């Protein structure tokens, strides 16, 4: 309420401080262009990071999967099961993992 009851000095100061609206003159378009560029760079860098990460991690993951399969096979063999018939091969696991990562990546791209 006190703000509504402005005195003559306030009105005088308002008039002194008043200025014309600043024309946009492409200012907002410039910001939108910068933002779009930034979003594009972020999206690409995310994709590249994912691919590089997959390539770097692929070999240790395959080795780990092979080791795990061997261990599981030995355990199954010691228990008297025919492990080789029932368990997935390393190649199948690798393809499954790669397919999973690619699906996650494209879902993220579509979502963004």
């Amino acid at each position, binding site marked *: 309420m006190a*703000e509504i009851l402005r005195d*003559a*000095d*306030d009105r*005088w*100061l*308002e*008039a*002194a*401080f*008043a*200025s014309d*609206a*600043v*024309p*946009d003159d492409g*200012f*907002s*378009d*410039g*910001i*939108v262009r*910068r*933002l*779009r560029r930034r*979003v594009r760079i972020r999206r690409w860098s995310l994709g590249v990071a994912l691919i590089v990460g997959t390539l770097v991690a692929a070999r240790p993951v395959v080795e780990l999967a092979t080791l795990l399969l061997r261990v599981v096979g030995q355990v199954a063999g010691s228990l008297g099961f025919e492990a080789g018939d029932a368990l997935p091969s390393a190649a199948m696991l690798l393809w499954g993992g790669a397919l999973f990562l690619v699906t996650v990546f494209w879902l993220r791209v579509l979502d*963004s």
Partner: protein
Amino acid sequence: MFAGKADTELVARVLSAQDARAFGELVRRHQSRVRNFLRKLTGDMALADDLAQDSFMRAWDKLETYSGKGTFVSWVMKIAYTTFLQSRRQSKRYAAVIEQAGHTADAEARTCTIHSDELPDLGKLLAVLNEEERAIMVMSYACGLSHREIGDVTGSPVGTVKSILHRGKEKIRTHFEIEDRRHG
């Protein structure tokens, strides 16, 4: 396309879809006030526009922190004011502009008499104020922010805002010896 949509709707759209066009509409709506504010604070149009651009880019980055409690424009003004203060500390270019403004202030801040029905040069008015007073006076009289909004921008209680405004007015009165001809 976005005409008639409230600021909060546009903010929600930007947050949910990373929609740069919706943010562009927010910039279009508020750029004048933000640029005017920074132009009056820095006294340099190019520097002010650079700071305004940085402010809006920061606003985009921090948009999820906008709670929707205050108005969007006061939230952006807060970012603009922070950007201005940080730039003052970091930028040599800004220091040069301020030094120049200081010389101008020395030259212009001599006491003079003006009539209450004539408008003085704004540069002369601002020259007698310190930076905090200048920012708050500009927000109040040039940008039309309420005391509460100014408090949000500066992080000060409303009472402090009022007292700084009062002090600024007193300084202007003292320096300019406003001669009252309002009542004939």
